[in-house]
């Protein structure tokens, strides 16, 4: 399967076409094609994982390339590059996609565009898988853009409501802004690598000094712009909360587990460039870690002031993405990738759980929920598991990955270790707040909530189990071969090894757990036991201001829309209007006026004088000629006789004298 990994993206792509063609006529309206295809892809991915893990050390990446066209020395084509990171991503993407599609048969039942939804999910999965197996930056970019487009399509699934279509556009345009950087970065690195798109080649050149530092820094920074857009890093994170306007399965699949991690995946994949370009090995602050760290904190802060449960989870996602980026920024490559792996499970679980709640209560707002733990037990328990995993409580999955990040940061990046610990505290706190508001207390809404159907409950349970057990992959309990860091490695043959593995550090682990428990404790105490002073906002103007800033999302949206967009949009619109009125309309009117004047001249001169003159003249001539010639028709015989005699005499003379 490793050599035939190109099948894995192909099957959902075919499913996309088939669903569009036949979906409506099938009994399950196309869902069976989608789920079937994804199921097959998932099985193939598992086979790929097993095959990869079963390979003996050192595991060499499998590359296959199909050249589309060659121009000069430039080779453009599609190919696959299968290594540990690839098979891990394949498994995660297909698995989450499978669960989400099963969940959607329940959640989206009776939807107005049910078949189309499944087709879009299949297309998205195919694009993401293509991105993941890509062996050259061009193919990666194609997959990148495609997932962006699918995100747009799916966020705006219910586009009849303007808020949804606006959110879709905002998502698309914000990521597009980042994609400018991505494109420029790809081009820069193409030239830097000697006119070659291949990623492995790029990494090798970057790590062996084949490319100048300045070029690597520039290319890496430009690529990172794309990462900031796609993976919702500060300041391009603004689209992700708005993207919650899409259906919850979409939020679970795309905006939690798979698409948003494409940026993280890019950094992980082209890590040689970033490592060398940003001098990560030298310690200290670099752009990647800085942005990641900022994102962790500001997103976590925003999660505290949200009423909509999906927005809480959205900000949580942004914060966790910050963790992953920060991990890569401090050189903890394996930790970041491992966190990507575990985060997919518990975040998808949390989103699907929130979907279950929303489906039951018919509202997104936590203010209309409450006391749900008795009415929806399955949802309650799975959501709890997910929250604890997110908070980093051992032995759940989140602990292992988050701890590894903090551990990695502690080796030379003290600032970011502090950031990570602070983030862990805030994560635990806001999740506890959310859990309390939803599941505890009295029910504040007006609907009649009941537990969700099996199609929705079973994926929750599956993900719950994985959230518990998933982290164990990192420990090697299933055998050293299966240990995550053994088969998912950043290895470039011919280049020095850059990723160092750090041993499990007990004090750091204790610290991170303690921080999480303190967070839970404070929040639980605030809500359940009414500890800590209330009404801080009424008493302190500073708190009030802080609250206002948070509620307005740091006024970033205002900055973008009023500041950036309007200042460009208005002058251009005015200029375009001026051109339209004066230049274009002037030209059109000029043509019209010219035509009219020409017509006038033609009428007056040509038609009236010349042509009418000719026609009238002909008539006049005929008439006058007739008047003249009529004189000969006197009706009198003698006149005719005169002509007769005269003519005969003439003819006679002619005949006699001239012949």
């Amino acid at each position, binding site marked *: 399967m490793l050599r035939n990994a190109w099948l894995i993206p192909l099957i959902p792509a075919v499913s996309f076409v088939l669903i569009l063609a036949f979906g409506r006529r099938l009994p399950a309206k196309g869902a069976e094609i989608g789920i079937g295809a994804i199921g097959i892809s998932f099985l193939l991915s598992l086979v790929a994982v097993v095959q990869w893990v079963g390979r003996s050390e050192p595991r060499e990446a499998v590359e296959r390339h199909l050249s589309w066209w060659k121009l000069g020395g430039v080779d453009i084509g599609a190919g696959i590059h299968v290594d540990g990171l690839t098979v891990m991503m394949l498994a995660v993407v297909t698995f989450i996609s499978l669960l989400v599609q099963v969940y959607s048969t329940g959640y989206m039942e009776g939807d107005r565009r049910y078949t189309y939804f499944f087709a879009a999910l299949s297309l998205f999965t195919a694009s993401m898988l293509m991105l993941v197996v890509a062996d050259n930056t061009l193919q990666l970019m194609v997959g990148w853009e495609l997932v962006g487009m699918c995100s747009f399509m799916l966020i705006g699934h219910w586009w009849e409501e303007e808020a949804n279509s606006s959110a879709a556009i905002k998502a698309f345009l914000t990521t597009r802004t980042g994609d400018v950087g991505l494109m420029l970065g790809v081009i820069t690195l193409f030239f830097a690598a000697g006119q070659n798109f291949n990623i492995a080649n790029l990494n090798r050149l970057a790590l062996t000094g084949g490319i100048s530092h300045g070029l690597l820094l520039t290319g890496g920074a430009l690529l990172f712009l794309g990462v900031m857009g796609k993976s919702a890093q500060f300041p391009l994170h603004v689209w992700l909360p708005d993207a919650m306007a899409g259906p919850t399965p979409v939020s679970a699949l795309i905006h939690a587990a798979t698409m948003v991690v494409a940026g993280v995946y890019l950094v992980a994949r082209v890590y040689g460039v970033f490592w060398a370009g940003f001098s990560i090995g030298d310690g200290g602050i670099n752009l990647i870690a800085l942005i990641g760290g900022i994102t962790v904190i500001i997103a976590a802060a925003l999660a505290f002031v949200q009423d909509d449960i999906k927005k809480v989870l959205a900000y949580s996602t942004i914060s966790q993405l910050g963790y992953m980026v920060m991990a890569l920024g401090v050189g903890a490559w394996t930790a970041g990738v491992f966190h990507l792996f575990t985060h997919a499970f518990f975040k998808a679980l949390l989103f699907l759980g929130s979907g279950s709640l929303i489906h039951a209560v018919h509202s997104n707002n936590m203010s209309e929920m409450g006391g749900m733990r008795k009415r929806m037990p399955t949802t309650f328990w799975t959501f709890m598991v997910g929250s604890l995993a997110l908070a980093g409580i051992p032995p759940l999955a989140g602990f292992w990955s988050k701890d590894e990040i903090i551990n990695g940061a502690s080796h030379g990046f003290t600032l970011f270790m502090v950031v990570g610990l602070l983030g862990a505290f805030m994560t635990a706190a806001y999740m506890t707040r959310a859990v309390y508001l939803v599941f505890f207390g009295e029910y504040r809404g007006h609907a009649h909530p009941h537990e969700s159907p099996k199609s929705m409950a079973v994926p929750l349970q599956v993900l719950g189990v994985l959230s518990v057990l998933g982290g164990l992959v990192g420990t090697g309990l299933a055998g050293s071969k299966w240990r995550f860091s053994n088969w998912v490695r950043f290895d470039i043959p011919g280049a020095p090894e850059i990723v160092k593995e750090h041993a499990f550090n007990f004090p750091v682990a204790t610290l991170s757990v303690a921080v999480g428990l303190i967070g839970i404790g404070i929040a639980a105490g605030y809500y359940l036991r009414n500890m800590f002073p209330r009404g801080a906002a009424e008493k302190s103007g500073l708190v009030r201001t802080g609250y206002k800033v948070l509620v307005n999302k740091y006024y970033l949206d205002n900055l973008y829309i009023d500041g950036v967009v309007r200042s460009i949009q208005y002058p251009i619109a005015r200029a375009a209007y001026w051109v339209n009125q004066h230049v274009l309309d002037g030209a059109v009117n000029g043509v019209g006026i010219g035509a009219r004047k020409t017509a006038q001249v033609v009428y007056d001169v040509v038609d009236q004088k010349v042509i009418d003159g000719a026609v009238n003249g002909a008539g006049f001539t005929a008439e006058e000629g007739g008047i003249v010639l009529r004189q000969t028709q006197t009706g*009198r015989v*003698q*006149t005719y006789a*005169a002509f007769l*005699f*005269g003519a005969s*005499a*003439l003819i*006679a*003379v002619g005949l*006699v*004298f001239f012949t």
Partner: protein
Amino acid sequence: MVAQNIAFGLLAAAMVAAGFRLVTTKNVVRAALFLAIVLGGVAGIFTLLGAEFVAWVQVLVYIGAIVVLLLFGVMLTRAPIGKEGDLDNDQRWTAALVALFVLGALAAVLADAWGTQEIKFQGVQRTAAVSDSIFGTYVVPFEVASVLLLAALVGAVALARRD
């Protein structure tokens, strides 16, 4: 030969003068009488040329019958006896021109064709020779002419009948 030339000259002068007056007189009856003079002159010419029978027939038929007929016509159409208004229409000058042109053409042709050839007078033709010709060589035209006369007679009667 002199006598014949003189005779011819006299006859010719009389005929031309009479013909001229015929076409210019304002009196219809006088025009008829001038016609009679011309016809008489023609008979004289015939005699000069030795065609006595034809000359006498000319006198009998033309002067005796046709002129009378014309005078009857003049009478029946109440033409005023005596001078009346202009008898020429308004194209007289054109007519004069045409007539002169015809004359000129004929004269030129005649002068060119026959120049000064003479008639060798062979003596008076015998009437018997004429009758031989009529009833012998040209008997069919003779019969046709008689039928034509009949037709003309009947036609004239039919036309002029007052019913």
